[in-house]
């Protein structure tokens, strides 16, 4: 009997614990596993460390105060360059931050994937990175004497991804023109949960797109959530573009507590089926 890894968003949240380090795939406001993020927002989970090429995932977990620490190279909504909830949390000093060069973030995940404590890189030298991350060290190459940054491993308890398609065995497929670093997040994590627009029969993914689009195989995944519009309001190309109107509504919700409460009531504290109806109507 082969494994059937299908779960709901609530099942995934039940596997999470306070204080965990959670990596989130996608990039900025692109193909984020928002239905799982919303389930986390509705849960009582707290003290999370969130590692991400950040967008509204980081912003929302800052807004609710569930992120104790965030690890990022940037946080942006793309068409709205500055993420207002992330800004508010940083400016109020309510979240601990580990800010990295974008390439260093990937390098830390790769180190975790390789089960080594660091990987060397040139990026970071001379910049504020070593000042704002005082525990970060440099290393001297035993081969040519170059002094390089020793980017520490960023091991994840859990990675959360959103793919275009998956099968029940946990193979995940990316039909857009960039899978960003989803595969690296999966490799860096002890456990990986992937949501997708549609679950297809095992063996049927090759009818959706060529083999090389099946970027994350079941070797790396522990659960699959079928979540149509699961990345909304971020984009999930080619299935749907970003919902700019809802994104604007989200960005506007950072203006005060009432605005956030209103956004939350409309777009977070609702059953997923209702959310999808609302999202379809809005777009």
């Amino acid at each position, binding site marked *: 009997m082969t494994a059937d890894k299908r779960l709901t968003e609530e099942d995934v949240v039940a596997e999470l614990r306070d204080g965990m380090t959670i990596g989130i795939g996608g990039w900025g406001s692109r193909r984020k596993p928002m239905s799982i993020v919303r389930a986390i927002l509705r849960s009582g989970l707290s003290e999370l460390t969130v590692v991400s090429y*950040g967008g509204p995932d980081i912003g929302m977990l800052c807004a609710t105060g569930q992120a104790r620490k965030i690890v990022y190279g940037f946080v942006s909504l793309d068409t709205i360059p500055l993420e207002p909830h992330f800004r508010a949390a940083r400016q109020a000093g309510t979240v601990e931050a580990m800010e990295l*060069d974008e390439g260093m973030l990937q390098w830390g995940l790769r180190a975790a994937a390789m089960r080594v404590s660091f990987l060397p890189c040139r*990026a970071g030298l*001379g*910049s504020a990175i070593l000042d704002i991350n005082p525990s970060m060290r440099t290393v001297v190459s035993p081969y040519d004497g170059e002094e390089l940054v020793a980017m520490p491993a960023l091991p994840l308890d859990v990675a959360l991804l959103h793919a275009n398609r998956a099968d029940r065995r946990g193979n995940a497929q990316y039909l857009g023109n960039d899978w960003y670093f989803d595969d690296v997040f999966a490799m860096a994590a002890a456990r990986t949960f992937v949501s997708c627009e549609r679950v297809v029969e095992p063996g049927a993914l090759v009818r959706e797109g060529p083999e090389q689009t099946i970027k994350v195989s079941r070797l790396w995944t522990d659960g699959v959530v079928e979540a149509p519009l699961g990345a909304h309001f971020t984009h999930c190309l080619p299935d749907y573009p970003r919902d700019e109107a809802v994104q604007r509504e989200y960005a506007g919700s950072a203006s005060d507590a009432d605005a956030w409460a209103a956004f939350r009531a409309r777009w977070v504290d609702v059953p997923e089926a209702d959310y999808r109806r609302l999202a379809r109507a809005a777009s």
Partner: protein
Amino acid sequence: MTADPTRAERCVVACAEAFRGDGEIVASPIGVIPTLGARLAALTFEPDLIYTDGDALILGAPIPLGDDTAPKVVEAWLPFGHMFDVVWSGRRHVMMGATQVDQHGNQNIACIGPWARPKAQLLGVRGAPGNTVNDPTSYWVPNHSPRVFVPAVDCVSGVGYDRAAAAGPSATRFHEIRRVVSNLGSFDFETDEHRMRIRTLHPGVTLDAVTEATGFPLVVPDPIPTTRAPTDEELALLRDVLDPAGQREREIAG
């Protein structure tokens, strides 16, 4: 040509000039005027320069700016994961924005005020630390003012010459701040101490005006060259092919 070049069109040419001599590397311009500059260079004096749609696709021909429906001539694929490889290989020249830049070429896009608790949180350092120690890097500033050209930046995102030197030979090995282009002129660091120098001023910009708009002393050549005008061919490409909707005129003041 019918009309004289505008200030924005001079800026595009000054940005294009930053890519001269780059050959077959990836140009990564951020912003309208740098994007037009890179594409103009690729269509004229740097024919092998590689440019993208701003996303994951390497283009074989430019698309009119802002026309999302224009068919793309796709030459190759360059997703972010591979772009990071390109950055660390040194085969890229990025022209980024700068919220702050100082006389040594340090740049800040991360935050204003102390990093630990910023007065204004911006993007974060993004790829600036890695870009600047691995590849030639330039900056585009559409609003030249003492708030941007500051004595010292609040958070060193892109590494300048003094910080690279202090960090040692592995930081300076591939480090080059090629150019800073603003709405007032173009600037380089081709001086003994790598301090920012006026390379050209745009027509109508006086030394007094640029001095007043800069929060540190600039190295001033004598005489001060004027930013060259686009050629007739460049102007036609710019107006008819690259930016028929005139987005370039909306990015700068004056």
